């Protein structure tokens, strides 16, 4: 039997401890060991972005991180961020603009878009395109995704202005 390492990771707010083979990447751990199949595997060489998740608040390629490297760290996946409502506004914008078709890129795309909305509230259309260019979509042609993110930024700005008053 392959050697394993006791690993404790906080996933979507709940601490889980498992015996993990060193070579298992974080996405396989989430999908196979925890049954969180919302994060997807598209290439396993860190290019397509389908595996984008959040570790300690920053987006990462889950396929380029070993599960054991996430020991003691906080991981957020599409399921957790959906249930907490953190992605609700962005999901609504994506839905209304049809910024997804087959949905395979969508969890990773939402994680990346959320990171942009959080860190670049003034992003222009070109800056949105540049920021999202690490996430491959074959179905949509990207235009609707950019529209959706722009809408989300606009609504965020409106809320901010409303809060200021």
């Amino acid at each position, binding site marked *: 039997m392959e050697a394993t390492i006791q690993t404790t990771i906080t996933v979507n707010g709940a601490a889980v401890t498992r015996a993990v083979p060193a*070579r298992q990447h974080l996405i396989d751990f989430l999908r196979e060991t925890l049954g969180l199949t919302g994060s997807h595997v598209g290439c396993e060489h860190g290019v397509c972005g389908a595996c984008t998740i959040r570790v300690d608040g920053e987006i990462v390629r889950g396929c380029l991180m070993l599960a054991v490297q996430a020991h003691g760290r906080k991981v957020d996946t599409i399921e957790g961020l959906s249930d907490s409502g953190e992605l609700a506004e962005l999901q609504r914008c994506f*839905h209304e603009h*049809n910024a997804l078709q087959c*949905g*395979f890129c969508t969890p990773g795309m939402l994680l990346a878009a959320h990171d942009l909305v959080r860190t670049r509230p003034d992003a222009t259309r070109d800056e949105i395109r540049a920021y999202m260019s690490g996430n491959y979509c074959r179905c949509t042609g990207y*235009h609707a995704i950019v529209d959706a993110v722009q809408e989300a930024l606009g609504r965020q700005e409106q809320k901010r202005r409303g809060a200021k008053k």
Partner: protein
Amino acid sequence: MNARAELPLHAPGTQVDKGYIGQSVPRPNAKRLLQGRGAFVDDLRFPRLAHVVFFRSPYAHARVKKLDLTKAARQPGVIACFDGRAVAEYCTPWVAVLGHLKGIKSAAQYAIAIERACWQGEAVAAIVAETREQGEDALGHVVAEWEELPVVTDMEDALSNRYVIHPDLGDNVCFRREFDTGGVDDVFADADVVVEETYVFGRHTGVCLEPRAILADYNAAEHSLTVYHSTQAPNMMQDIFSRHLGIPEANVRVVCKDVGGSYGIKVHVYADEMATAAISVMLRRPVKFIADRLESFLTDIHAREHKAKVRLACTKSGDILAFDLDDLTAIGPYSVYPRTSGIEGNQVVNLTGGPYKHQKYRAKMHVVFTNKNVTCQYRAVGHPIAVALTEGIVDLAAAKLGMDPAEFRRRNLIADDAYPYTFPSGIKFEKLSHHKCLDRLLALMDYKKLRAEQAELRKKGVQRGIGLAAMIEVTNPSPAFYGVGGARISAQDGATLRLEPTGMVTVLCSVTEQGQGTDGIFAQIAASALGVTMDKVRVITGDTAVTPYGGGTWASRGAGIGGEAVLQAGRALRSNILDIAAVVLEMDKAELDIVGNEIVNRLSLESKLALSELGRIAYFRPDTLPLKFQSELTVTRHYTPREYGFTFTNGIQASYVEVDPDTGFVRLLKHWCVEDCGTVINPMLVDEQIRGGVVQGIGAALFEECVYDDAGQLLNGTLADYLVPMSGEMPDIVCAHIETPTKQSQLGAKGAGEAGTAGAPGAVMNAINDALAPFGARVTAQPFTPERILKALGKV
């Protein structure tokens, strides 16, 4: 109030209430995808699920001298190892030929190759293990000895038969086609202007983000097989698993849950997928195969490797007289089953020159085998080639005459009132709208302003280019595509609609969903036909045990064919519902209608009975209805397009680019597409299909190519090296629609899924060449890389 139930939606002069049809309704089934709660094949969990990995040939052409699986079989977690002979006992081979492609030939292909591998990546053994990791670990313990054989990679070399890949076939020609209206040589001899150019198209592939995926579950007690398959055509696969594995058709169930993109890649039969199904039978347990990205590049079908010489003859006032085409295309070592690899080239012959009103045409086309990956139909099949070479040579002719490319097209596009029309290649058009689309496009992009802008910027050394591409597009095919050739591929589809006791509606349809919005538009159509709100409708597709028998998704047929079946079934169910309402309310059926989930008085719109109440009565209290009356709340209708072999659509695209003549880099500034797909059911979904298609076409034009060396080794089989379009380089894509419904159906919808891909490469090529025109440079080989542009400019 209206004549909704009786008339086609496109009937002139009537006020047909279209309900949701024509509205940009967000798709209900997108919600689960937005939360990562979809169900793709790799998400499914089964007891005793085994994983299969494949030992693949490292050589493009080699005989397997020795294959020893015994050491691999002893590795941790390995359940079994199989070679081609073992699997052949459970899965019969196939030859991908069809009767209507005269003379097409191919060699037999087995689920796992026996004795000889004919392309790098072809599987020669399978290892089944508890986990994918263990399977891959065991691959390293397979002992194989190979005898390398001569490799054919170049299409002209293949055509020369210097080395014949399948000696029994006699030569390397899979299929050849010739077409001649006659009189072509005379026309060219007499013409004022003759232009000629050769276009080269790089082989490329679909790169679905969800790789190919199949999970086969054989039940030995029942001799039944359930396959969870990321495929576009479940009934076709049901038939193929049944025939090749020797399992009765009704014992085979193919289920398509969520499919992560397909674009034609997933409508073909793959040897390793057949092997997976066979292995499930052999081991009597569920077996899963998920191609990883590296395998995908080696084995997902490639497409579009063409070299086409085209000539155009026209008068000095710019009337096109004739096209003359000589096309050579390289496929893999086998024609792909069951649709054959001859269709793409066949389409190029059918479609070249498509939008124009010339009368003379000659074409010669050869499809040759090579030792590279197999190729077959990929989104827009043949159209990107035909449109690019047509629109490229048209631009060349316009340039030679000093005519504006838009005006040259206007002069030659088939008139909007010329229909029905038979094109020189024999294809028939019901009714197209080339001129309306051209007018709309030029207005949408403000063509004159862009030309002025281009001229101004040229003075400052900024090189911008505008490229147009007019196109025709095959959609809603009848059995003329495959059925007539003997393929058990259905060109008809069915829809079953059922009113549930609570007044909800279930729609079962044989067309499938891969993200384009099939489920969404069927809900729109069903709700509109019935008079219910969309939230009451549930759509089920992709389960051969549950949905009617049909063709699935391919050739842009889902909306036009499946949608029509849904509409007709909806109208029939509406009539049945009103029959029940009439007896319950003791009113005349003609006085009643269904609006907003209620039976209403047709004229006053006063609500008389909720559908949920009607459902309760019909299902639970039929004792309260007249003695001889039987409610029939489940209705099925099928639809086959019959009058036209293919329902052609038309469109026109434009690309606006800026070329940096120092670096050869192309910046895509903007893209437009005006498209006529008949009745538009959901503009937002159609627009996104077009945009996605355009970006795929841009990928082919600028970035994508499967590069092989002379030894048949794929050099760029990773996502780092094979360049797919990402958001940073893509332009905004403006879409507009003209609607010329087809009269063949009540819905009037034609197809739209492939149009974007058909026209984009041609538009981009013409834009680049327009930008390079001041330098006297032209590019004709896709993809138009910076290096190719620099070479055309003489800079390297």
